[in-house]
């Protein structure tokens, strides 16, 4: 598929630009919002808001037409790039493991399960709102 290869660079550039923006937003929020009892509340908010926004974005784009051309570029820039870079799974996993390792088992379970379940609810709500006419 030489055609798809020749198009990879601009698509990857859109993801890179979006990922840079999303990561700087996450890092900036992390600098301003401190942890609460060693629970990274900033990461909770970032991940839940990001899940809602991605659900909203993908459903909105899906309602407008096929994943081609400008819609695909917007999906890669804002979805895969900005929101993918904004949200993070590795910090959730490591912070949960650190909490559990310190003996804060209740905080670890509540933090991880709470983020995962809130993220699912947020993504479902975003999809529903974005998919509604």
């Amino acid at each position: 598929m030489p055609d798809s290869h020749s198009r990879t660079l601009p698509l990857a550039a859109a993801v890179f630009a979006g990922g840079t923006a999303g990561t700087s937003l996450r890092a900036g929020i992390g600098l301003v919002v401190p942890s609460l009892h060693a629970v990274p509340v900033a990461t909770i908010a970032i991940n839940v808001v990001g899940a809602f926004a991605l659900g909203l974005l993908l459903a909105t784009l899906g309602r407008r037409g096929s994943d081609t051309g400008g819609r695909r570029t917007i999906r890669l820039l804002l979805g895969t790039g900005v929101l993918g870079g904004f949200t993070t799974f590795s910090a959730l996993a490591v912070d949960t493991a650190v909490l559990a390792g310190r003996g804060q088992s209740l905080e670890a379970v509540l933090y991880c399960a709470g983020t995962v379940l809130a993220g699912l609810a947020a993504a479902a709500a975003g999809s529903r709102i974005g998919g509604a006419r």
Partner: protein
Amino acid sequence: MTVPVFVLVALAGGAGATVRFLLDRAIRARTGAAFPLGTVLINCSGSLLLGVIAGLAARAVLPEAVHLVAGTGFLGGYTTFSAASVETVALLAGRRGALAVLNGLVVPVVTVLLAAVGLGIAAIG
């Protein structure tokens, strides 16, 4: 965080997101779209690696700036919570209940275990 480190964190996040995009696309081309294996493998590998990096930084073996750029930046941008959530919702909407439980509940537990393994590796190394 100094301004140069913040800029490097942001750029590393862009690089991580780009690697995620290319890796996910390559895996998707081989396995199809029934189960989001790409995101799963990315989030699992990223959690293991961040465990190692965070563990080494906690022991001051790794400078804090490297922890920030490689961890908060690259691995933060490489792994993604939003796509994982949306993919579980899509599995639920498609009535793939078992795969939704696997993706939405089992995978997060596995990432935490891998992060703990990473922290353990850093404690030995």
